[in-house]
């Protein structure tokens, strides 16, 4: 103890302290982030997948993301984004991006399943990241009510309580979720594409994600018990409807009633 107190004014003491601090935070961070990678790389890719994927990447993605996916000023580095990110972005047609804009738009996808898998294998081989989720998490047999609560607390502020989508700032938006596959929903939560935050397994557990997917699929299958849903957009579409259709029909009747036959 005496030696330590004597050396506390040593010129290198501050540096040693800084190093210790960095080591502790870095170590804690590494422990914390492995929560997210507990299931990393459960899907096995063959070496040839990664090799083929590398070729596809060089031909289609490297312009923006750089050779070796190290990133350029036009596109971020993809080292460590994981197979899930690739499967989501390429599988929904968002990548390759059609044009620059506030966010990548969904469009008919450009690569088939096999090519998407090869790209995913390639990117996954560059560094560990969220993997494509297990089929067991996508069976839509979770607790819908629990999923609904999680959805309202975590997702509804952007995606709308009925998952009909909503606006964000400066042209960005949260898309409607009807018709999106469970796998893509899961991957979006795990990787946070575009302007979406990442909901890692510490935020929402894999079971919670399964519940959310169950909820979304259930309300999609339920349809609208009260009749046509008018886009599930809430009071704006209802107000528009009553003014245009409701009042319109009634005005037609008033004209009929007050027209004279003479």
């Amino acid at each position: 103890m005496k030696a330590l107190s004597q050396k506390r004014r040593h010129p290198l003491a501050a540096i040693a302290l800084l190093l210790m601090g960095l080591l502790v935070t870095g170590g804690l961070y590494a422990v914390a982030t492995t929560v997210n990678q507990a299931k990393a790389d459960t899907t096995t890719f063959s070496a040839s997948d990664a090799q083929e994927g590398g070729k596809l990447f060089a031909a289609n993605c490297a312009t923006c993301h750089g050779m070796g996916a190290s990133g350029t000023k036009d596109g971020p580095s993809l080292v460590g984004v994981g197979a899930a990110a690739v499967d989501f972005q390429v599988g929904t047609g968002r990548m390759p991006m059609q044009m620059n804009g506030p966010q990548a738009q969904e469009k008919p996808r450009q690569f088939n399943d096999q090519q998407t898998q090869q790209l995913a294998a390639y990117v996954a081989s560059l560094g560990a990241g969220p993997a494509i989720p297990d089929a067991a998490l996508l069976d839509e047999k979770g607790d819908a009510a629990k999923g609904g609560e999680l959805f309202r607390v975590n997702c509804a502020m952007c995606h709308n309580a009925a998952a009909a989508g909503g606006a964000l700032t400066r042209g960005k938006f949260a898309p409607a979720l009807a018709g999106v596959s469970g796998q893509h929903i899961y991957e979006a939560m795990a990787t946070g594409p575009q302007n979406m935050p990442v909901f890692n397994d510490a935020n929402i557990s894999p079971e919670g994600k399964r519940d959310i997917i169950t909820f979304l699929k259930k309300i999609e299958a339920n349809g609208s018990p009260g009749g046509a849903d008018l886009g599930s957009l809430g009071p704006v579409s209802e107000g528009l409807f009553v003014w245009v259709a409701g009042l319109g029909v009634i005005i037609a009747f008033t004209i009929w009633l007050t027209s004279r036959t003479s």
Partner: protein
Amino acid sequence: MSASSTAEVPFAPKTKVGRITDFVDERVGGSGILREFGRKVFPDHWSFMFGEVALYSFVILLMSGTFLTFFFDPSMAETHYSGSYTPLTNVEMSVAYSSSLNISFDIRGGLFFRQVHHWAALLFVASLGVHMLRVFFTGAFRKPREMNWVVGGVLLILAMAEGFTGYSLPDDLLSGNGLRIIDGVIKSIPVIGTYISFFLFGGEFPGTAIIGRLYVLHILLVPAMILLMIVIHLFMVVVHKHTQYPGPGRNDGNVVGYPLGPVYAAKAGGFFFIVFGVVALMAAMFTINPIWNYGPYDPSPVSAGTQPDWYIGFVDGALRLMPGVVNDFHFEYIIFGHVLTLNVLLPALVPAGIIFTVLFMYPWIERWITKDNREHHVLDRPRNAPTRTAIGVAGFTWYCVMWAAAGSDLIATHFHVALNDVTYWLRTLFFLGPIIAFMVAKRVALALQRKDREIALHGRETGRIVRLPHGEFIEVHAPLDDYKHYKLVGFESPVPLPAEPNEHGVVTPKEKRRAALSKWFFEDRVAPATPAELEAAHGHGHHEAIESGEEHKSLSH
């Protein structure tokens, strides 16, 4: 029949039904009432029926609402949902929300009645609004109907209050968010705001009292006030008699139309069922307020696309348009320990305050400017009062800008534009829109007047081109019949009223201001064609016809 004859020969009914009817009539005086009301004359025009639509919507609301009260429980006690909507099974919620879900899913016809009630509510306020627009633009608020205009304005406010209290009852996420905004607005009122909020909610928001309190307001106090106002309104309609559009044989001393009984009573009765039918069809085919989508109220989540029903939309829109900070200028002050939050207080109260103040005062404002103290029972065609029409259009535009702002997020997503740009444009239109609308509406009204004048003088263009023997082409103008002519020329066109000295021979500054406003009001005018002008125009036509040959005389007019 004369009074003397009835006195001499007392009426003796011959049949049993006749005797019973006579018995009742002698004690109730029904035939006298029927004679009086049955002869009330109503002019026929489709635009006169919106008040009726509002009345019928209100009747539908009373009936469907009564059904809902049988099953609704306004308690905020906590429960776990156990009804048949599985995506909410075992979710913690209030009894109010749970009973609303039960009405929707477990009570036979419950969802239909809920939707009838809600659609009828939207239609009620919409038809009220259109009715008031009709009254404004045709000048029906002028003497002797100023007070009834005010009663109508009170009805509009009551309808909004009734709608908002009802919107909040299911205690779902959407309505809870709406209540939270109201709470924020109340709390932004200086000094007393927090006290009012705590009094209203029985403690800190949301508390456990608000749904029960709103329920009492919604089913007891506000509907009773609405009913009272409707009675006063209709009583005044009977006393004042109905207004009518200008036409031959119509003046401020008569009403031209059908008597109430039997034709109009049948029409009106049938119209009730038409309105009911339209509302029932909407309720059966289109969902409204799907509360099961929103989930139970919980102060933490706020869903995207959270909006109030359309009639509160303009207030929500004004709140959305208000910037939080402009450069470094924030709108929050702390005065003697009290926080004054202008960026909530200003947009929430000022535009609505301006709209309703002007709305209530307008009959007196116009009366002061025009010094018009005569009774008016013949309406103005909107084009024939260009400045009033322009004021109305400007006000309506202002309202619509705020209204649109309440849907700014949906405008952004559905038209693929940036939310920020929508907000910037609407902020600009908030200030410029009414001015542009005023100028455009006034010019359009004047242009229509000119068109009327042109048609009155030269007849309707037939589109038939005739070549005269000497080679000249003329378009044949068809003369109007006298009925149509009357409509185009038989209206008042006041001129600016200069400042007049009062009884002391002094022209007061107030009178000068009035004269200036009068000039602004009536300066731009298109005078209706005078008889002399009409004569001259026709004479001119004859002259041309004679020049171009006797046989073409009929062509030129």
